[in-house]
């Protein structure tokens, strides 16, 4: 294609002699959308920064980048500044930190306009208002004088998009623009980006780790791994053929369903909540009187049976994490009852050791879940603290060994520190820590959300296998509907602190009754079908 807007030819990048990109070639033509897909460390973001010529210190770039007939890598800084923001706009992953916290949104959008057009400051603000209107932030509700901290994540991302498209660039680069957002917000932002591309002749590069997200937007896909392009073809063809083994592996991992064979014991509930209410104070403490409180969990009742996997889905701020913490005795409970095996727990006095033995937890972030100064053996044996009699040194060693082995790790790992492990291995260690006292229930709070798809598939398999062998019950808390569908027997949908729908997982997903559940399911991006053979 000679009419392509952007063409990368044999681009290689190294930073302080560490190779990052190898021989990357791709092209984008006006009015089309290119999706770049890869897991963490694939070099997909660095490809974007290479195009923008915004590389960290110590970078060495080879190959050619031609944009609109101009060799970008040959331009000087002044010429590049004229192109950035004007001809190429960029949207970033983290809307919470992408805006300057001490400037109004109007000023930040207008700055872009005033920089590239010779207009008065007043005129720039008028145009900024129009752009904000175009990205779905009407002036009446979102005056230019708003500061970023007064907006939600999705609204902030709209401001970032407004900055990027203010000058109607020829190319928009969106680097994981929806990864930090909830499903419904994600759908809105994707629709907005699609609309912006359709309205004009703008081309877009959409960078993501999520096959389902790009499949709905992109015309052409590029699959990257370890800084190389492995597969490149029109979107439909990619999904139909799954030609490259890595593409196939990604596809299968994304839709992977672990095999589960649990038989829930439905005689009497293991854990039962009745009318649970959790509140916490918000805002500044007024000079007189009490702080306002926010009801995060509003009269929630639920039951979990032994050996059962229950999903709890909802968007951020719906109260699902507060509920999890209340179950673990980590969050104060305002009203309601928690009972375990039919016995009502005394919440205010703190849970007894016997109760803590039955329930364990795995958190989302594999990087902050461990004390960096303790060895793995000590880390995973921390819950043994609740035993009435501590095991002897020999017993402890044997226990640590068998637990590590049951999560697929090795005895020698007990003497290592946590920074020696990858994200997926850390999540295995977190599971080992939960498993070591043989609880009846493990609460998984977004436990696989931070992992790459291939690692996530392995962890889901591990969880299914452990449930089978140890008759474990799970409370699987997640914002990711497709994962919940594949690992749970029953599901609860939470919104604004209340359960709005509950039922058998397949039934809820197949025919949702509540309008909110329907919205959630409609917003969730779907993997397209393939005609290739998938194991």
């Amino acid at each position, binding site marked *: 294609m000679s009419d392509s807007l952007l063409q990368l030819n044999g681009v290689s990048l190294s930073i302080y002699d560490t190779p990052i990109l190898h021989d990357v070639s791709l092209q984008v033509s006006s009015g089309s959308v290119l999706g770049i897909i890869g897991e963490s460390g694939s070099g997909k973001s660095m490809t974007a920064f290479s195009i923008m010529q915004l590389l960290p210190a110590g970078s060495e770039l080879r190959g050619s980048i031609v944009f609109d007939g101009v060799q970008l890598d040959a331009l000087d800084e002044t010429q590049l500044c004229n192109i950035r923001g004007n001809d190429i706009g960029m949207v970033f992953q983290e809307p919470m930190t992408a805006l300057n916290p001490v400037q109004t949104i109007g000023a930040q959008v207008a700055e872009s306009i005033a920089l590239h057009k010779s207009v008065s400051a007043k005129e720039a603000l008028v145009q900024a208002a129009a752009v904000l209107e175009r990205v779905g932030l009407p002036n009446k509700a979102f005056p230019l004088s708003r500061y970023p901290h007064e907006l939600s994540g999705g609204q902030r991302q709209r401001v970032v998009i407004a900055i990027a498209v203010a000058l109607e660039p020829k190319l928009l680069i969106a680097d994981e623009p929806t990864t930090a957002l909830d499903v419904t917000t994600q759908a809105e932002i994707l629709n907005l980006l699609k609309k912006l591309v359709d309205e004009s002749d703008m081309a877009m590069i959409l960078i993501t780790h999520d096959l389902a997200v790009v499949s709905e937007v992109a015309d052409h896909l590029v699959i990257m791994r370890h800084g190389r392009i492995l597969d490149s073809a029109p979107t439909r063809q990619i999904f139909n053929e799954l030609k490259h083994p890595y593409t196939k592996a990604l596809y299968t991992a994304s839709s992977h369903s672990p095999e589960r064979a649990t038989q829930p014991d439905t005689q009497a509930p293991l854990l039962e909540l009745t009318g649970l209410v959790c509140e916490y*104070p918000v805002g500044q403490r007024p000079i007189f009187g009490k702080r306002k409180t926010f009801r995060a969990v509003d009269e929630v009742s639920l039951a979990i049976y032994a050996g059962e996997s229950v999903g709890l889905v909802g968007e951020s701020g719906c109260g699902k994490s507060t509920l999890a*913490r209340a179950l*673990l*005795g*980590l969050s104060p409970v305002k009203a309601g009852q928690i009972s375990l095996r039919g016995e009502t727990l005394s919440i205010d006095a*703190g*849970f007894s*050791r016997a109760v*803590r033995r039955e*329930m*364990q*937890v795995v*958190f*989302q*972030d594999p990087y*902050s*879940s*461990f*004390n*960096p*100064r303790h060895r793995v053996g000590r880390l995973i044996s*921390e*819950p043994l*603290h*609740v035993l009435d009699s501590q095991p002897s040194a020999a017993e402890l060693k044997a226990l640590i060994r068998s637990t590590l082995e049951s999560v697929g790790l090795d005895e020698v790992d007990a003497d290592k520190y946590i*920074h020696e492990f990858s994200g997926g291995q850390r999540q295995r260690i*977190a599971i080992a*820590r939960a498993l070591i006292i043989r609880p009846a229930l493990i609460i998984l709070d977004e436990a696989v959300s931070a992992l790459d798809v291939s690692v996530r598939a392995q962890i889901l398999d591990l969880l299914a296998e452990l449930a089978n062998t140890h008759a474990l019950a799970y409370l699987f808390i997640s914002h990711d509907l497709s994962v919940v569908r594949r690992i749970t027997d029953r599901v609860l949908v939470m919104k604004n602190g209340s359960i709005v729908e509950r039922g058998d997982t397949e039934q809820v997903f197949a025919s949702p009754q509540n309008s909110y559940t329907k919205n959630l399911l409609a917003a969730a991006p779907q993997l397209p079908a393939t005609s290739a053979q998938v194991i």
Partner: protein
Amino acid sequence: MKLRSLLPGAVLVLLFFSAALVSYLWTPFDVTLIDIKSRFQSSSAVHWLGTDHYGRDMLSMLMVGARTSIAVAIVAVGIGMLVGVPLGLAAAANRGRFLDEFIMRGNDLVFAFPALLIAIMITAVYGAGALNAIIAIGIFNIPVFARLSRGAALSLWKRDFILAARAAGKGASRISVEHILPNIMNLLIVQGTIQFSLGILAEAGLSFVGLGAQPPIPSWGRMLADSQTLIMTEPQLALYPGLAILLTVLGLNLLGDGLRDWLDPRLRRER
């Protein structure tokens, strides 16, 4: 590795520490020996750095002065750490509650009294002495360490591994000792060297104006004060103690910077 400042810092600090330690056992001359006949001597093989207005050996004076400075600064930093760190940890463990508010407001209050003012109040009522300097600098160090450890502990309390420890049924004080303290130790060590150097400066300042160590105990600040009136005729008397303070503080600061880089896991972690 960015350890350029660690080595020179450590060498300087070691030099002055050993000078102070050796002075307990041996000094070239007795610092209490007043010998007016041999005053104002310049550097020689006998008196390496010459003698002062009482004929005392400057090198011996500097060695014993190092002892005073270092002792005052160490005890003051010790007070600051021993009181400040537990307060900071307790405030963080009770974040948002009354105890936290109480401790932090108490900190603000102490910050309203610079160390010199505390020393002035004590001296006005009880008279001058090295103990004043220790108490004044020590009190001023408390909120420094309380704030630092509270801030660092607060960010740790938000981490999941603390939640995991709480889920395992561990109490706030046990978590503070087992999980929080080891993780803020680096920060405390680095801040400790900084406060140590500030303590040496403060002690010198207090002794300089007569609020610190009293004669006949030699101290660097006192030596500078004595040299002030003689600066026209004997400027070298002002040179050596000043250089001693400068080099000690410089050494401690370099050591602190070097330690920070060395202990920072972000700079050490191999990926």
